[in-house]
């Protein structure tokens, strides 16, 4: 089984420096692109590979890049932005990729920037990743020192600067248009769409925003080709995926596996199964803003379409497991507390709806719930759903709620009829 993204990552050891990375074949893809390929050919290669965004939305990367205007009258200034604002609760894969092999990401950024003819790239890194910041600063400095960044890279007449921007901590900055406002130094609320960033992005210029893991795939696609990349997956999706598991399992962690690996294999084999004394109850498969999956879904391959057909989203691919001794209502309450706190407050349904949901769940959990609360929560799930809010934040926030109402309906009813949380005595 091939693990191109993580094969050179040695946790607990220093990441490969520029010399070591080049010895491992690093920057061969960049060399090849700059000397043998046109920017359009790089876009075509990525398009052919069917690489989809690994940050949560799953949009095809090559297609996104091809939306950047390219005619003679197109804006000359374009930007490539790497979204390293990994703040989705339960998600820790981009940190692993950055700290484990920073040059792999930087090579991906350079290839993407070349493909869209951008001369400036920004890495938007969350503030709390201070180790990632150090790692990236050192790696970028190495590239400038060796003339692999700056003017006339590898004698190709292509110029590129990469700047690292560290944020100050706010979940909404991961939303790509909020991220652009944050980079511009504005209050980081999302922008109205359309126009979309590939046409009108950073400072009004065409901009591609792409997640860390997505960009890390690009050098491998250029090196080995689209067919090879497609073949990495177990289903008709392409590539590998960094899957992660946290919660009460024996070995929480991350694994690079073929896209389409089953939930059961990830939880039972790689994560070692549930801790002794705990049973599997459910899982949110791709970070906090995805719908619960339950036991009946364990044998589903985790790829974009299959998870969507099961009513959830692959999201970031890093899952949080719910065990049988943890109250599902309390778990959803924790999630909605997060969303209520992190709502940027720009649009009313999100700003007012999420605290209402949070208070209602709190009342149910504490035994103060009434029968009509269930309908109220269903209503909120609809009213905060897709198309009713300014961005995807609130629709994401209600995903775990709407699925909890479906799969854990008995628990909701028991809390209300017994006026207490039946799990209280089970918690250690």
């Amino acid at each position, binding site marked *: 089984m091939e693990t191109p993204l993580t094969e050179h990552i040695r946790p607990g050891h220093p990441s490969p420096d520029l010399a070591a990375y080049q010895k491992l074949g690093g920057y061969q893809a960049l060399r090849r692109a700059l000397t043998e390929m046109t920017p359009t050919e790089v876009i075509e290669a990525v398009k052919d590979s069917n690489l989809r965004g690994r940050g949560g939305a799953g949009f095809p990367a090559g297609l996104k890049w091809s939306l950047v205007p390219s005619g003679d009258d197109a804006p000359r200034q374009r930007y490539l932005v790497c979204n390293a604002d990994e703040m989705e609760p339960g998600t*820790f894969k981009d940190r692993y990729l950055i700290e484990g092999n920073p040059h792999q990401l930087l090579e991906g950024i350079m290839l993407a920037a070349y493909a869209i003819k951008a001369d400036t790239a920004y890495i938007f890194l969350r503030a709390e990743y201070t180790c990632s910041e150090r790692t990236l600063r050192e790696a970028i400095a190495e590239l400038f020192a060796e003339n692999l960044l700056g003017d006339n890279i590898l004698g190709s007449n292509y110029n590129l600067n990469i*700047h690292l921007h560290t944020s100050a901590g706010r979940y909404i900055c991961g939303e790509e248009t909020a991220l652009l406002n944050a980079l511009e130094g*504005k209050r980081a609320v999302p922008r109205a769409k359309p126009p979309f960033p590939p046409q009108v992005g950073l400072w009004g210029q065409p901009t591609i925003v792409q997640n860390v893991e997505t960009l890390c795939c690009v050098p491998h696609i250029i090196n080995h080709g689209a067919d090879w990349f497609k073949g990495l997956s177990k289903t008709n999706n392409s590539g590998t995926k960094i899957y992660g598991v946290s919660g009460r399992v024996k070995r929480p962690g991350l694994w690079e596996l073929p896209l389409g690996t089953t939930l059961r294999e990830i939880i039972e084999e790689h994560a070692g199964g549930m801790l002794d004394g705990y049973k599997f109850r459910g899982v949110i498969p791709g970070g*906090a803003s995805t719908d619960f999956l339950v036991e009946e879904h364990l044998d589903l391959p985790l790829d974009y379409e299959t998870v969507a057909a099961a009513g959830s989203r692959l999201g970031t691919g*890093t899952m949080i497991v719910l*065990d049988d001794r943890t109250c599902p209502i309390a*778990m959803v309450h924790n999630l909605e507390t997060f969303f209520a*706190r992190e709502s940027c407050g720009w649009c009313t349904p999100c700003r007012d709806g999420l605290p209402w949901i949070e208070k209602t769940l709190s009342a149910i959990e504490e035994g103060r719930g009434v029968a009509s609360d269930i309908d109220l929560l269903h209503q909120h799930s609809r009213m905060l759903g897709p198309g009713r809010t300014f961005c995807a934040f609130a629709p994401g926030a209600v995903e775990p709620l709407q699925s909890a109402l479906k799969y854990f309906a008995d628990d909701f009813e028991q809390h209300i009829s017994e006026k207490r949380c039946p799990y209280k005595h089970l918690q250690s």
Partner: protein
Amino acid sequence: MSPEERQEIEHEIACYPYKQAVCVDALKILQKHRGWVSDEAVKEVAEILEMSPSEVDSVATFYNLIYRQPTGRHVIHVCDSISCWVMGCGSICEHLKKRLGINMGETTPDGRFTLLPIVCLGACDKAPAMMVGKTTHENLTPETIDALLEKLP
């Protein structure tokens, strides 16, 4: 504004086509030197970036890690997001509150510690986790927390 602070901000300005882009960086630079961002600091950033103080404050108040109030020498951010919650961050918070004698959002009377909640730190496989200053500490227990706090001046 000290020459050092000004120099650091100017260095960031050179990385962007517009001055305003370094608003967050400038706030973080002043906070690094002064511990927090006062009204005076907001005005200084506004002046150097040619923004209005209210624009700067709308940015300053937006972020979890820009402190608009004085803090203790060590700011403890305890993750209370989902993975840490499943793994028992509630008892970690209770332990910290009891040991420090303060609630979330408060500073110890000796000015040593400020206690704040934070969203997911990306240490979910090593939960529960907290960040003290710039360092993340993982797999927390009351015992490891006690040992850590004793080492901090």
